[in-house]
């Protein structure tokens, strides 16, 4: 029973709320020791998927296999072995960071020393602060600390960096990489493509309750073709866009942001086409960027939308 290659396997997972198919036939397998990422926009069904596996929600259908065991809903035994950081961690107020960790630590048979956890999540100097007084980044680190009290093999982290500034995000990434080094399996959700790209061994791109593509970040990026992406700001103009198409430029245009993205294997030729066409239509082109394609481009190519609609 302990002999399994995949620590979690789900098959045809389904969950409907009213007429919203929050999770619509999801399948995936999570390799032991990897960082597995669900990447998707708001409402894609990431949280619902995770919380079904965590035993918080009951699926309408599907199979779950965890630690090599088929379960309808995880029980005490499995809960001893997993660590969870919810999308939104709410704690009992008026308790300190250390007290909160100690309390949750007492719920498990085995686990880490609270002081070691404080050290690891870098909250030693906040040990005596009330949990309600922590900053966003500190709160997220505490949430991760709480997920670690039982030294779990398998961690579920639901958007651990959403809403954090780049520095705080970076410090969480460091924690996650260290945990991976310790051999833990991490299931992560995010809508930051940089995060998935930086951390993930395997990415499932999720949209409207379905996994629309999965693979390693590199493979996913390669799969859409094109060596480079050219981005420019330009006014919406139909004859301009039509002419680009005629010239064979492979682009997407976001009218909300007035931004054009073109994938290409030949940067010089494509940029030339864009600039020339713009001039012909008397349009100004600004903020030109030439970069490598990323997961955002993958999502854009697959759905025609952006991951985060700011």
């Amino acid at each position, binding site marked *: 029973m302990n002999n399994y290659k995949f620590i979690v396997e789900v098959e045809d997972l389904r969950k409907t709320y009213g007429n919203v198919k929050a999770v619509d036939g999801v399948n995936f397998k999570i390799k032991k020791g990897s960082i597995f990422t669900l990447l998707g926009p708001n409402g894609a069904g990431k949280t619902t998927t995770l919380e079904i596996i965590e035993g918080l929600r009951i699926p309408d259908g599907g199979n779950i296999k965890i630690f090599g065991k088929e379960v309808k809903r995880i029980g005490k035994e499995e809960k001893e072995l997993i660590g969870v950081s*919810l999308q939104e961690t709410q*704690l*009992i107020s*008026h308790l300190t960071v250390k007290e909160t960790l100690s309390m949750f630590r*007492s719920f498990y048979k085995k686990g880490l020393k609270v002081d070691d956890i404080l050290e690891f999540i870098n909250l030693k100097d906040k040990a005596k602060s009330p949990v309600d007084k922590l900053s966003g980044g500190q709160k997220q680190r505490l949430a991760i600390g*709480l997920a670690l009290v039982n030294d779990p093999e398998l961690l579920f982290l639901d958007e651990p960096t959403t809403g954090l500034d780049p520095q705080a995000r970076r410090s969480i990434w460091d924690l996650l990489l260290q945990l991976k080094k310790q051999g833990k399996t991490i299931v992560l959700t995010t809508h930051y493509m940089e995060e998935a790209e930086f951390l993930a061994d395997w990415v499932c791109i999720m949209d409207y309750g379905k996994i629309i593509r999965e693979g390693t970040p590199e493979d996913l990026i390669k799969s859409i073709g094109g060596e480079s992406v050219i981005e420019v700001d330009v006014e919406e103009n139909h004859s301009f866009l039509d002419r680009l198409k005629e010239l064979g430029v492979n682009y997407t245009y976001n009218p909300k942001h007035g931004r054009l993205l073109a994938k290409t294997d030949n940067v010089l030729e494509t940029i030339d086409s864009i600039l020339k066409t713009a001039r012909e239509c008397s349009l100004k082109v600004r903020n030109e960027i030439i970069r490598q394609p990323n997961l955002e481009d993958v999502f854009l190519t697959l759905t025609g939308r952006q991951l985060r609609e700011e």
Partner: protein
Amino acid sequence: MKVFLSIALYRFKSFYRDTFTFFFTLVLPIIFAVIFGFIFGRPEGMGQSTIKVGILKDNEDLIKVVERIEGLNISILSHFDELKSLVLKGSLDGGILFDGKTFNLIINFSSFQQKPFLRTLGDTIANAYSLKEAGVEEGFIRVEEEFIDPGKARVSNLGYMLPGVMSFSIASSIFSMIALFGYYRKRKILKRFAVSPINPFSFVLGMIMGNFLITLLSSLFVLFAVQIIFNIKFYINWEYLLLSISSSILGMMALGIFLTALFKEPQTANNVGNLLLNIMIFFSGIYFPLSFLPNYLRTFGQILPLYYVAKALRISVGVEEGTPNFIFSMSIIMVSVFIILVSIFGRDILQVEEK
């Protein structure tokens, strides 16, 4: 067991650090007690009462009894006519007549408006007098064949009401359960617990234990505080008192759980709880002696649980007559309702799926 104790401990800690709870369970009851002190007069040495009553001089026995009632200013008069005219003029707030069988109270109604105290005077005197008749020289109230500490105890509205302020502390249990079963769910605090391997009953009972202890301690603190502030010494029957407080806490918790189950929205449950609490306090003899109320309202008060809580507390501290049976019956009912509700709603507390 480890989980139960740990949850109880941390709930206790989070609770006593919560300023709102602290205020509600400790400060507010004492503030009320002090306000009552101003309204209802106080034991000697702490200011003069303004209630003046007249008694005819041939009622010697009565005079002796009434003299011991705190907060009264007695004038002794020789003729009924004289007494009556002084009352009518308002120089006296009332007069007491006793013909050996029945008391007659004459009251100036304008004073009566201002001084509800007078309204209970009849009962108070009757109480005191009947004990004297029974051969009890100093005391005035009997608790199951045991007499209160003579000399210290006084026939006093204040003394009658003060134990009631413990009900404020006890009633905070209503809201602690609305918090646990309502707000904790709504604010997704329970969700974090639900992903851990704890047993729902260890969780619920641990939380309840934490609340229970803090409420019990607060009530006792309030009781000691009012004794010190007013320099009163209650004759406390500890077994009855602890039983009354404990079962009342559980009963009020049951009410909180019931309200949370009834009104899905915790804010609504909270508002209804507040309203209900105010009604209950009004009719339970905490703000003023129940004898101020007309009979039908007194009867109404008796369908409200806080009436029994307050009464049990008064019996336990020796300011009201009552039997152990009253306390036992109340305890059994409160605890049973509590056990039933906790076993129904406790099991599912960590089933946090939102609908």
